[in-house]
């Protein structure tokens, strides 16, 4: 196979950071080439340079032996490089056809609606990416929006397709469809660069993998000749434990009891009569496909949404009507799923973010006056013991990496010594190292006899951590299975609403 895209010694420096340090990459015709690396390893910087969004400081990019210099995406597109961004570059208010032809419209003045829609209908048939060209993009599901992005690339006659973290926002079914699309494109001889930090996907779909770490390309290996363990080690730069080790433990008294809970948002009932309990020293995992009521259920337990009926009992006390503040002081901690919107005040310092829940109480404040020293000492302690980097307590939360932001939230919530920790998607978008750290902390709470309610869309996470697994579908709890015995197939069926046959 001949080399299609070749990158040699590409270097990009930002003020204070060497984002890409002599990066090398070789893409062959008709292969799926994965770029694997943790967040902040320099994957995005690399592809932005290939796509002309950034200009490299030194090094070269060549396509089919011809050296290229892009000063804008327009030039990269003309050269035949197409990219699907992690965050879609789509305009919800416009139609599919308008989004696709935008910037390369045929004709001079008049926008040819009918003709454009017909061309796109043909294009979608050709690449097996079925879509309605006249639909408004804002009305489409995330998976279909991604299709629009891919079609956009082929409309511009791309010879190389770059997919930047394409599975980050997709449901498991949509990921499956995307993988099929990628395989079909490979059959048509289109080389694909696939950027990811998820080992299993890389292992499954790619022909070769280039691993990046700290701005450098550390290795390129053939996927078939490597193991996930080897890839993980290359990615992190040290031995990584992929399998969580969890000592057996008997659960104690119930800490949280949810009884026949109904939660409505607007007119729609999102949770329809859910009952379960979480006991001391256990991790209760709540599995389900996004949008089946799991996060409304969490909001009702933390007090962010009112319960329409039913009861929430915490350590024997009915807290159904209690406000958020009462619940947290009673001993409930919460890691929200959206750390930027709900977990942190991004423009505050770490010191302030560490005391967001308790700033008004001793020892952090007295008579409405904040005690700077106590707050700073607390921040020092937490940032030390949770290994938050950079280790500067006056750093602004926004400037931290996702993993470190999550550590800040975890440190704040765990240091309050809660009886119950509710963790909603605690490892979303994090790299292997940070995920391991957070899983260890959850297991530590379990070992200390605390209760943990883990809500996650990642089935692997639920299965490796939970003592018991509840599956939620369409606002109802389908079943509660013991963690060690539930299989992926069972859970998958329950998640899609299929009831299991009772055995025996």
């Amino acid at each position: 196979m001949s080399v299609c895209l070749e990158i040699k010694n590409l270097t990009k420096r930002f003020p204070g950071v060497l984002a890409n340090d002599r990066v090398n990459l070789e893409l062959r015709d008709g292969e799926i080439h994965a770029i694997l690396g943790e967040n902040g390893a320099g994957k995005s910087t690399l592809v932005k340079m290939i796509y002309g969004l950034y200009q490299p400081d030194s090094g070269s990019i060549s396509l089919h032996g011809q050296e290229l210099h892009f000063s804008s995406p327009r030039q990269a597109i003309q050269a035949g490089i197409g990219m699907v961004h992690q965050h879609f570059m789509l305009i919800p208010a416009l139609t599919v056809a308008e989004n696709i032809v935008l910037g390369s419209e045929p004709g001079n003045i008049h926008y040819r609606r009918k003709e454009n829609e017909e061309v796109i209908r043909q294009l979608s048939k050709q690449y097996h990416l079925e879509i309605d060209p006249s639909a408004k993009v804002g009305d489409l599901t995330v998976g279909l929006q991604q299709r629009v992005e891919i079609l956009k690339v082929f409309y511009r006659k791309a010879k190389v397709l770059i997919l930047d973290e394409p599975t980050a926002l997709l449901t498991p079914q949509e990921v499956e469809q995307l993988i099929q699309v990628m395989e079909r494109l490979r059959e048509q001889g289109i080389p694909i660069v696939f950027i990811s930090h998820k080992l299993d996907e890389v292992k499954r779909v790619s022909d070769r993998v280039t691993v990046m770490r700290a701005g450098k390309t550390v290795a390129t290996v053939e996927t078939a000749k490597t193991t996930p363990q080897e890839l993980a080690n290359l990615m992190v730069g040290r031995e990584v434990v992929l399998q969580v080790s969890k000592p057996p433990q008997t659960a104690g008294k119930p800490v949280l009891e949810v009884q026949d809970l109904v939660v409505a948002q607007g007119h729609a009932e999102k949770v329809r009569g859910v009952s379960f309990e979480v006991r001391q020293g256990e991790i209760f995992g709540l599995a389900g496909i996004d949008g089946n009521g799991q996060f409304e259920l969490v909001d009702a337990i933390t007090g962010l949404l009112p319960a329409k009926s039913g009861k929430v009992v915490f350590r024997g006390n009915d807290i159904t009507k209690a406000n958020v503040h009462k619940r947290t002081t009673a001993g409930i901690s919460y890691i929200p799923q959206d750390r930027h919107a709900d977990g942190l005040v991004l423009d505050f310092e770490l010191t302030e973010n560490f005391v967001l829940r308790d700033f008004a109480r001793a020892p952090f404040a007295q008579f409405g006056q904040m005690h700077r020293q106590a707050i700073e000492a607390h921040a020092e302690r937490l940032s030390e013991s949770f290994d938050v980097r950079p280790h500067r307590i006056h750093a602004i939360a926004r400037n931290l990496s996702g993993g470190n932001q999550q550590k800040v939230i975890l440190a704040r919530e765990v240091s309050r010594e809660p009886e119950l920790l509710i963790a909603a998607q605690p490892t979303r978008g994090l790299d292997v190292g940070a995920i391991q750290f957070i899983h260890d902390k959850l297991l530590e709470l379990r070992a200390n006899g605390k209760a943990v309610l883990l809500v996650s869309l990642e089935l692997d996470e639920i299965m490796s951590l939970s003592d018991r697994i509840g599956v939620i579908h369409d606002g109802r709890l389908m079943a509660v299975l013991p963690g060690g015995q539930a299989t992926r197939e069972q859970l998958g069926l329950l998640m899609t609403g299929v009831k299991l046959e009772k055995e025996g």
Partner: protein
Amino acid sequence: MFWHILAQPELWAATLAMATPLALPALGGTFSERSGVVNIAMEGIMLIGAFFGVYAACLTHSAWLGMLGGIIMGAVMSLIFAWVTVSIGADQVVVGMGVNIFAAGLTTFLLNMIFGYGGTPTSTPHLPNIHIPGLSQVPFIGPVLGQQNVVVYIMLLAVIASHYFLFHTNLGLRLRAVGENPQAADTAGINVWNMRYLGVIIGGMLSSLGGVYLSLGLLNSFEPNMSSGRGYIALAAMIFGKWTPFGSLGAALLFGFSTALSMYLQGTGNISTNIIQMLPYALTILALVGLVGRSTEPAADGIPYEPNK
């Protein structure tokens, strides 16, 4: 009695005449905001158009060249506005307010400096009214549509042309794309800044034509602050019209009608003139609160574009 007033063609003719200096800046605002630049500077740009229209007309002894001069100066003012807001990325509302205050001061100052305290000469040429052959003879319709000022017809043509431009041309698609998601437009190879300059400058030209209509169409003189808040009502008309040319025209007609009605009712003496003069403004607020509900503004309206962020 009230129905009797509605049957008067003069009321409807006045409605159209009063709607014109609202519809033009509303259309201008639509262009600017569709490209993603919040424009509250219509008031000031109208004044610029009104003053320089009269000044150019006096210098050249031609109302047509006056109109051209007013529009050019409106475009120049918008160019400065675009430079500060689009290229430098300054807050669009603050700069817009600055333009309004600056324009009010500048035009009053120039009026006194150039023309003295006597005001603009009464001999200033005037943009003509047009009698459309045939149409102007038809009863009722004739006086309403057939014999208006030339700018009224330009405005009606501008509404149609703007609709075609925004929704049926490739350039219009690009302009709207930039106002919705500049990042996406940029990655599609569209120059975001060029589109925004285009939107702001076309907007400024239309707004200043609204000003020219006040000074050379309705009157043939310039008075300090003669736009008297029309730029702001145009802003409301633009929102009320959901950022579309025909919507803006419709809202402008509604406001124009209330102005025309208040002019008519003033003659009757039954209602306080203060209340009547308040009508269009009260209607503006009511329209925005009650009738529009959730408006669908361009998603990136008001956000300066900085790439690589």
